[in-house]
């Protein structure tokens, strides 16, 4: 996507007859409080946490299933597409209101449908509305000695509906798996306002796993209005280790050794020297500032297994040349070690006005090569790229830092992003490990999948969402170029 060809904003375009008719129907359902049409509101909903942006027709904020169903039926009746949205922390432009063929979509926010409907402690599961924030479920579960495993770094803001819709990851994916593994059932509302319970409570013999397809559907299959989520008992013991290394290779080699040891760590995060310097400055987590890389490791479970795991990790790190190894002695020290990792986004915000994030995954054994390539790309494009890696999963989101006011910088940012993706693909990796395709990676899909693969994906999508109005131009490449999004951050060059 070339910024030069992107269309500008459509702020002053008056609504068409169909749009006006829809808005008047919606107003009848939602009133002033639940329907936002002003320039200011529309500006707020132009984008998610990526910098792809577009002008929506309006924003609907239903509070109940009945209101939502009426909103969807109105979209159907007037043939207006809609873009589901929750907290807007998505990083792939999934919630960016791009339209089709010049029609601006309605943003449907589920943020006000945010109740914890049931916490079934005996059966360790929770029934939630989509707008419930991830961390709120975490707190409610913790009060009962339970935990909700998926812990994306954005968990204090991102919603469970958004986590379902993106199949979110987090820090504990290596042993606990991604979001899908923790979703027992999804309630999906289609464009007719009908609710489908996808996968009920039966462990086998049911119909097709449409639950599994709807997880990661990125708003293109309908609206997730509820989910049954699996809770786990809180681990009785936790062991945390911080290891510093002189080289990125040594840290990557340690990861390889850990993954093939007799007990998998539950979390393995790697941060490079630039990331260390940035967070130390901001959060004082106690990382060795002279190290080329640090590994943050965590083991959870029963006490003997946890201490054996931490012992093994300490030995393997030392064997691979760790210059410093710190075992967290207590909960405070553990919190401090993680503080640095969790402060990455905040530290970046303080340092550079903008960042562009990739989300590639490579097989773990190719991690060292991928890290080297990122360093080379950063030098070539003369950009600061921070590397913070879910190393146990081979999933690296390199943060490309920049200032949009610098002329020509976007070309270099896009070039770097492109090279990161093509390098990962060449290493047998893939485009996105947890952020999703959205519009940002949509046109890369044909590099991974054949025309037949994509045709089957499209057939499944149409079978689940026949109206074609749900987040229409996301996820799958379209044959006709009808992109209405602007790759240019708003406010650039003004």
């Amino acid at each position, binding site marked *: 996507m070339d910024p030069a060809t992107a269309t500008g904003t459509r702020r002053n375009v008056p609504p068409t007859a169909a749009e006006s008719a829809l808005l008047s129907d919606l107003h009848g359902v939602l009133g002033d409080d639940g329907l936002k049409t002003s320039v200011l509101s529309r500006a707020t909903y132009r984008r998610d946490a990526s910098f792809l942006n577009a002008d929506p027709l309006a924003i609907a904020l239903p509070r109940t299933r009945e209101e939502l169903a009426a909103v969807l039926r109105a979209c159907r009746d007037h043939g207006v597409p809609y873009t589901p949205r929750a907290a807007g922390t998505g990083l792939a432009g999934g919630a960016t209101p791009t339209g089709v063929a010049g029609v601006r979509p309605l943003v449907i926010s589920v943020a006000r449908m945010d109740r914890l409907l049931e916490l079934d402690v005996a059966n360790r599961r929770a029934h939630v509305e989509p707008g419930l924030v991830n961390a709120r479920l975490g707190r409610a579960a913790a009060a009962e000695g339970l935990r909700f495993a998926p812990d994306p770094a954005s968990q204090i803001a991102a919603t469970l509906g958004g986590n379902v819709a993106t*199949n979110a990851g987090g820090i504990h994916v290596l042993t606990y798996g991604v979001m899908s593994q923790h979703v027992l059932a999804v309630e999906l509302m289609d464009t007719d306002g009908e609710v489908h319970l996808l996968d009920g*409570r039966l462990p086998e013999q049911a119909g097709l796993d449409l639950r599994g397809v709807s997880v990661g559907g990125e708003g293109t299959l309908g609206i997730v209005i509820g989910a049954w989520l699996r809770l786990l008992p809180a681990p009785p013991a936790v062991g945390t280790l911080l290891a510093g290394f002189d080289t990125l290779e040594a840290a990557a080699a340690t990861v390889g050794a850990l993954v093939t040891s007799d007990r998998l760590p539950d979390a393995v995060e790697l941060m490079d020297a630039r990331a260390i310097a940035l967070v130390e400055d901001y959060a004082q987590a106690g990382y060795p500032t002279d190290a080329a890389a640090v590994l943050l490791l965590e083991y959870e*479970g029963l006490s003997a*297994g946890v201490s054996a795991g931490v012992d093994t990790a300490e030995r393997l790190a030392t064997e691979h040349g760790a210059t410093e190894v710190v075992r967290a002695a207590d909960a405070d020290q553990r919190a401090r070690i993680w503080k640095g990792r969790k402060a990455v986004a905040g530290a970046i915000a303080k340092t550079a006005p903008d960042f562009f994030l990739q989300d590639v995954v490579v097989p773990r054994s190719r991690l060292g090569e991928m890290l080297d390539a990122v360093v080379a790309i950063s030098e070539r494009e003369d950009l600061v790229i921070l590397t913070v890696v879910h190393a146990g999963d081979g999933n690296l989101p390199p943060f490309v830092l920049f200032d949009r006011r610098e002329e020509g910088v976007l070309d270099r940012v896009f070039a770097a992003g492109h090279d990161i993706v093509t390098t990962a693909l060449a290493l047998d990796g893939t485009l996105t490990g947890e*952020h999703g395709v959205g519009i940002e990676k949509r046109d890369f899909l044909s590099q991974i999948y054949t025309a037949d693969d994509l045709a089957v994906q499209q057939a499944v999508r149409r079978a689940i969402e026949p109206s074609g109005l749900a987040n229409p131009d996301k996820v799958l490449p379209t044959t006709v170029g009808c992109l209405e999004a602007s790759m240019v951050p708003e406010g650039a060059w003004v």
Partner: protein
Amino acid sequence: MSDATTMTTDLAPIVETIEAARAARGRLVIRGGGSVVDRLPLTDAEVLSTAELTGVVDHRPEDLVITVRAGTPVEELSALLATHGQECPIEPLAGHGSTVGGRLATALAGPRQLQAGRVRDWVLRVRLVTADARVVTAGGVTVKDVTGYDLCRLATGSWGTLGVIAEVTLKLRPIPTASAWFTSERPASLVLADLYRPAAVVSTGEGTFVRLEEHPDDVVAQAAAVGLRSADPPTLPTTARAAVDPGRLAELTSWAQAAGIPHAGFAGVGVCLLDGDPDALAAAGARAAELGGSLLVLDAGATTLPMRPPPVDPMTERVRAALDPQQIMFDVRQPR
């Protein structure tokens, strides 16, 4: 680093069989090892076998992934992985000969599903020959991948209705350092609540059986804390299986206990294996249905099956119709 010779995948015979069936408007039933299909009554559908489709395509122990052809027996896969200290905990079903493709297609639960998760959670990539004769791939070889819709999970548990699962990439993990079976007189639900993430808890007529898999010291400590005694693994019935909400399993197992029906309920999972004559199974099916569940009878001798399949959402029908417009793939679970 690959453990076996990499053979060129030749899916042409499968594509041809499917095309012929489409042309003749015939019906196909896919047979892996036969551990399930052979125990269902015969149909007039032509059998499409994956028996020739065997072997490891690529094993990367350092990446914790393996790619195998669908006809590879699960036991062969487990033996190979064990030489590397690894496993993929998709348990073979009771009896022998289940294939990796068959395990995925049926996604039937084993007792270890409690801790290890469902079959679908171990599948990273699937190569599928669809019922409209297209060879397609979904997913990738990395442990995390949200590129496009998750058709791996769609194929898992599809019972052959979408096409032939031809090749599978699975996620692996290290074999637990220690594991053992125990028994207890206490009800399964209480034992389950007192243990930290046990590998399996099985409720039978002879009491509650527990499998612990972790560090040897933790196995000993947990068993002592809950008063478990060492035991042999439980014997598992093979004739039928009921699936219910795990929260209602105890109602089914206590019913089976009172009725004197041999059973093994997987606590926290919601599956109960059962043995019995057609009358007993019919009663079990009715009980499962009352609890909102279903019953699958695996007995070739049963002429009229007291099957109680769960209702199918219209979306499922639409997805099947999209991939199998001529309905050539026969769902072996259909009552007939």
